[in-house]
């Protein structure tokens, strides 16, 4: 028996209406109080290519992607062979038995439901016949997995509120599949969903949705962006929430401006222009956009302008795998642009942190007067995660950083835009239009002195560059600190991870513990690295660095920035475009240590 602990995968044709039915299935389990991790594995295509939807159900909180499919809902003849092959031994294959299929495996159980036939008999409109097949297999699953049918029905009513005449045929389709399964199969199966309270107060939300919402609560007023997968939904979420929360009631006018720019260069140019002028502005993009924005990032670094970017990383290089996930823009973002440049990076690991880092990112960008890049990825951005609810501290205002107003300007003898008055490397700025006589300066990407005047004096430029380094050191003390997996660290070996890898780490540590291997873990949350990061590495004989890229980019950054012996850091890498699994992490560490590894599919049903 597997109760509240299994992986189900849906194999569909892109554009066939499966997405909403699959999402309904995942949300229903979440509503039953069981944590879920749905993952959309989709092609760069609008209609016709294979697409998959994986749902991991786990009430112990292991919500990373897991190999070993316990049940496959195989609805796509194109991908049939590989879908059948992927089912774990002892697992289930649910398929549309309207069509005769050769099933060559005898180590899996098959459940044939004549979905096409049932829907063709019940519905007359061709579109309905197609769409309701998806709802019908969800109906069959409610019986097979013993799901709370009232919850599922209730969700359909919610989904079609306002379009009430759609509720009845959807419920009809749901019952069509459910009744067939109840009649012809021994329901429920030995994988089941049981109502639980394991979800607690958590919410189910996409990282990009959380980031867009975070920008509203951070006081962002200007968003400039260019459509690119997988970042588009950040701007769309910001727009959605602005329409809910930022319309002036008396006039119906907008307390925000969202511009779909002509390209990524213009998008960041607008965000920089707005920030220069005292409005909080951001852009959202992915790797190719970062490449295009690099020149502007150098300007913002050197002219010391705040700007917040969301980089929803996808598979690279070049156009790469636009609909797959990776963490492969670490180096290109840390050092984006020509000349000596460095940028503050934040690494959220769940949607709650996407929200928090949007709020904190603006504070940091304005405090440090420099670009801040939130390094999300496709897995986090475009999939729904079971995550802690959003919170803000209402006692805290926005940290607008060192900005002088007219009264403050009156009090000082001579304003110097790039003077390090406080010794922390962070100068004072003024917004245009503040004072009739004082505080005006020329923002430029050319070499400048402490008064923003153009200079070709190399010693002056070197002085400015050193102060920028000093400012970056200050950043180490204000960026989010790393988080440690253990309260006290006693192991001889450590493991460093960041971003979405975090969700697979506890499970991987459990697997390693089964082989008597114990590691101290640390999750990086920001670049530049604070002293704690270096201390953690130096206090362990060997440290594994887990990343979702080919070249061990974070490892390179650690070696470079902390001046470490590269031999101390062992790369653990996954870059196939799928979210890294606990088994991958555990196996690669076991291999490195010369120990036996477990079969990847062994985490499925047959292991029982």
């Amino acid at each position, binding site marked *: 028996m597997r109760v509240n602990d299994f992986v189900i995968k849906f194999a569909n044709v892109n554009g066939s209406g499966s997405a909403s039915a699959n999402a309904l299935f995942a949300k229903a389990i*979440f*509503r039953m109080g069981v944590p879920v991790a749905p993952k959309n594995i989709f092609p760069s295509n609008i209609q016709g290519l294979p697409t998959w939807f994986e749902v991991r159900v786990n009430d112990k909180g292991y919500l990373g992607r897991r190999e070993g499919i316990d049940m496959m809902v195989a609805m796509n003849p194109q991908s049939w062979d590989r879908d059948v092959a992927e089912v774990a031994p002892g697992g289930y294959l649910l398929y549309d038995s309207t069509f005769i299929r050769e099933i060559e495996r005898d180590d899996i159980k098959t459940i044939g439901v004549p979905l096409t036939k049932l829907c063709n008999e019940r519905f007359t409109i061709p579109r309905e016949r197609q769409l309701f097949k998806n709802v019908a297999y969800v109906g069959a699953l409610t019986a097979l997995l013993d799901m709370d049918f009232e919850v599922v029905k209730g969700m359909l009513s919610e989904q079609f509120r306002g379009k009430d005449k759609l509720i009845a045929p959807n419920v009809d389709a749901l019952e069509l599949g459910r009744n067939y399964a109840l009649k012809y199969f021994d329901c429920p199966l030995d994988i089941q969903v049981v109502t639980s309270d394991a*979800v607690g*107060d958590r*919410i*189910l939300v996409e990282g990009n949705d959380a980031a867009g919402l975070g920008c*509203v*609560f951070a*006081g962002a*007023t*200007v968003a*400039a962006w260019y459509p690119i997968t997988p970042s588009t939904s950040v701007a769309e979420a910001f727009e959605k*929430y602005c329409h809910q929360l*930022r319309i*002036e009631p008396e*006039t119906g*006018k*907008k*307390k*925000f*401006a969202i*511009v779909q*720019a*002509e*390209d990524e260069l*213009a*998008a*960041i*140019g*607008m965000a*920089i*222009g*707005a*920030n*220069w*002028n*005292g*409005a909080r*502005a951001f852009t959202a993009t992915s790797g190719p956009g970062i490449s295009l924005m690099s*020149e*502007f990032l150098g300007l913002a670094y050197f002219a010391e302008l705040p700007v917040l970017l969301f980089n929803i990383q996808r598979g690279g290089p070049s156009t790469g795998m636009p609909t797959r996930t990776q963490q492969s823009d670490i180096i290109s973002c840390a050092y984006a642009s020509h000349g000596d440049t460095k940028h503050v990076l934040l690494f959220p690991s769940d949607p709650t942190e996407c929200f928090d880092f949007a709020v904190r990112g603006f504070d940091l960008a304005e405090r440090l007067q420099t670009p801040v890049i939130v390094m999300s990825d496709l897995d986090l951005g475009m999939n729904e995660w079971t995550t802690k*609810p*959003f*919170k*803000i501290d*209402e006692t805290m205002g*926005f940290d607008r950083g060192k900005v002088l107003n007219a009264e403050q300007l009156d009090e000082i003898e001579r304003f110097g835009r790039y003077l390090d008055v406080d010794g922390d490397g962070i100068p004072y700025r*003024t*917004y*245009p*239009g*503040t004072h*009739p*006589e004082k505080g*005006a*300066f*020329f*923002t*430029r*990407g050319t070499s400048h002195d402490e008064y923003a005047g153009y200079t070709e004096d190399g010693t002056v430029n070197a002085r400015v560059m050193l102060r920028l380094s000093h400012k970056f050191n200050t950043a180490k003390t204000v960026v989010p600190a790393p988080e440690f997996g253990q309260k006290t660290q006693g192991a001889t070996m450590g493991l460093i991870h960041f971003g979405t890898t975090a969700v697979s780490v506890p499970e991987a540590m459990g697997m390693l513990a089964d082989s008597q291997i114990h590691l101290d873990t640390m999750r990086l949350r920001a670049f530049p690295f604070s002293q704690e990061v270096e201390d953690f590495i130096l206090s362990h004989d060997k440290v594994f660095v887990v990343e979702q890229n080919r070249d061990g980019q974070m490892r390179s950054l650690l070696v470079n920035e902390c001046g470490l012996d590269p031999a101390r850091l062992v790369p653990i890498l996954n870059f196939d475009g799928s979210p890294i699994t606990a088994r991958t992490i555990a196996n690669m560490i076991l291999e490195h240590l010369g120990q036996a590894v477990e079969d990847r599919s062994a985490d499925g049903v047959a292991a029982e």
Partner: protein
Amino acid sequence: MTYIAKPKFHHPKLPLNDLGLTRRDYEGAMSTLCAGCGHDSVSAAIVEACFELNLPAHRVAKMSGIGCSSKTPTYFLSKSHGFNSVHGRMPSVATGANLANNSLKYIGVSGDGDTASIGFGQFAHAVRRQVDMLYVVENNGTYGLTKGQFSATNDRVSVGRKGQKNAFDAIDLAAMAIQLGASFVARSFSGDKDQLVPLIKAALSHKGFAFIDVISPCVTFNNHIGSTKSFEFVRDHEHTVTGADYVPHRETITADYEEGSVIDVTLHDQSRVRLRKLDAGYDPSDQAGALQHIMARQAKGEVVTGLLYLDTGETELKEKMEMVAAPLNSLGVAELRPDMAALEKINVGLR
């Protein structure tokens, strides 16, 4: 350039404007451009226009890209904030700045390389969005800072300093701006202050995207015989379609013009631009006609100057975006951040 610093003192009887400021109060740092550069005349015209309009300098923002022309914002309005951005990207920075605070006057200064080549896309989209700004191109048909390469506005018949031929047709930025829907489009000549200053004043009173293509000869690389952007060539081939006078809101219009040859157009701040129609039948409100006229004259080797197109009915960016009246950069936590109750409601919706 001269290296003799400007004296800080000035004659006590220098004329004052309504703000009690002299022209000197609108000047900037000493120019580092070549002596005789047309761009310095454009800077002087901007100073004159702002002085005459009684603009408080700190309520003006100067935006530019990269190149000789983009350096010039340092040479006027030293009490204004300036932003010398990256090559060809001034339009986007100006757009963002404008969204943050529409209550400032934006003067963008660009060149033909900055606008007609590397920044062509951003230029087009700033026009399309009707960003509320004055966009001046100091057009000399050449890349000055890199020593004299042809730019995309150089005419095919033009020859380079060393006799090299230009194989490609020129991009006419004024025609481009009209075609893209800019609501104020003019062309002038840096050597014609009498025409340029009123045009700048009218452009600064216009709400929306105001474009002025200023032919501004490069004395060092593009002022020789054979260049169609030389002082001599432009003086000989300039053809003015409209003479523009700027009439501030408070001044009464005097009747010293010939009936039928003059039209007054009221601008957004109730000031007026008075157009002396030098070409019979030229109608600056006719978009297609304006384009046709420019092209017909161009075929004859003439450079058409004056206020070429004006549409006072077009809305500008902020209106199109349906934004609140207050500048976005003036809104604080109270106006921008919903409370915890609103956030909790969102949490509930995600369960």
